[in-house]
């Protein structure tokens, strides 16, 4: 629709997750109006992140070094390993106070969208378990259908290894309203109920 560099930028932005053609156009025209210095800062931030940040060779979280701070911390060598889908899940669990090791799968099984076991860091996980030793593996994938499929698939792969495999409880969001919970969530929340000390 536009010529040369303008259309190139619209096309590139349009390939980003969650950005459709209309948003790509809007961002492009925003960038065109931006002072040159600001635009350069954005461009160099992208270049810098690609040059300096990679993935930890052990847990596949984002990292500046070959090993991320968590994997290089001897205090973290407890028996439990938490398996998550994305780096942002590590951040969330850190905030919640988990102090063991992590493994980032970099996605969840969704064969219809082209994400099968080969596209995830599953082989690396199995190798780690053999090399590092793990007492308890906590499956912290999302409580949606892709996350559940991933957790069940992993549980099956891990069965021969004889380690304890647990799945985080799924229930009602704290601060949420009961009436908005769907039947499956409410059913699980009931199963996972605990005794209150009066």
């Amino acid at each position, binding site marked *: 629709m536009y010529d040369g560099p303008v259309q190139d930028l619209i096309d590139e932005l349009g390939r980003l997750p969650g950005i459709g053609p209309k948003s790509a156009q809007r961002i492009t025209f925003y960038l065109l109006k931006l002072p040159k210095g600001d635009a350069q800062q954005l461009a160099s931030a992208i270049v810098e992140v690609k040059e300096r940040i990679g993935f930890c060779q052990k847990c596949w979280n984002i990292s500046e070094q070959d090993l991320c701070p968590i994997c290089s911390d001897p205090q973290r060598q407890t028996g439990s390993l938490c398996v998550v889908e994305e780096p942002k899940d590590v951040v969330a669990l850190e905030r919640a106070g988990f102090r063991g090791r992590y493994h980032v799968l970099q996605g969840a099984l969704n*064969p219809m969208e082209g994400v099968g*076991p080969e596209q995830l860091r599953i082989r690396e996980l199995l190798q780690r378990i053999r090399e590092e030793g793990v007492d308890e593996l906590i499956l912290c994938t999302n409580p949606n259908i892709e996350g559940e499929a991933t957790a069940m698939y992993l549980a099956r792969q891990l069965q021969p290894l004889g380690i304890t495999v647990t799945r985080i409880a799924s229930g009602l969001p704290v601060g949420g309203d009961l009436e908005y*919970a769907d039947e499956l969530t409410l059913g699980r929340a009931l199963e996972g109920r605990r005794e209150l000390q009066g």
Partner: protein
Amino acid sequence: MAHYRDSGVIVRTHKLGEADRILSVITENNGKVRAVAKGVRKTRSRYGGRLEPLRHLDLQFYKGRGDLDIVTQAETRDHWPQIRDDLDRLGKALTIAEAVDQVAQDKQPDIELYRMLCGALHTLHKGDPVLIVPAFLLKLLAHEGVAPALDACVLGGERTDLEYFDPRNGGVLCASHQRGTRISSAALELMRATLGGALSTVLEVQQATHTDEVAAITHRLWEYHIDRRLRSTELLK
């Protein structure tokens, strides 16, 4: 009529933006509807976890200007929890959903397709038949008008010594017209029973070499006619 109501089963979802999702829904009266569900990926969404694949819902849509409508209400009819908690059943259910998504046309009413899908998912909720996926695929191919010929040789019409099967030629072949791959008489019987009104007996069959054979032949037939692979079978390995 800006709003309309319908029942449907979600067969596929895509993420859209930060918190939205695009759903493909096989509906009772409006064929395949593709619709945006706003805010569903937030934990406090008023839809809860309802708008996921393999949910059967009563829905209200707002007619969009383009291909996409908008979901404005959703109530659960069935959620088949036994499917969700078992990897084999989930893999089979997702394969069935993927197959339906591949053949269903946008906004082309097809009540039979909707009923077949609900029936198959209900069966999977009740049990885990070995041949549910192959049987469903055969039924669906028949529904699409490309059922294989199973009673007589497709080249010479012979009714005996039917020992080969070839998707390209559309069915079974006798020993003298051999094309494609071999088929055992046990496998052929199961395929005939599936298309011949004896589905319930087929769904009781235990796993054996000839059930594997039926599965392999059916998937080849699917790929020949629909020209797409069913990728959800990866969950079953």
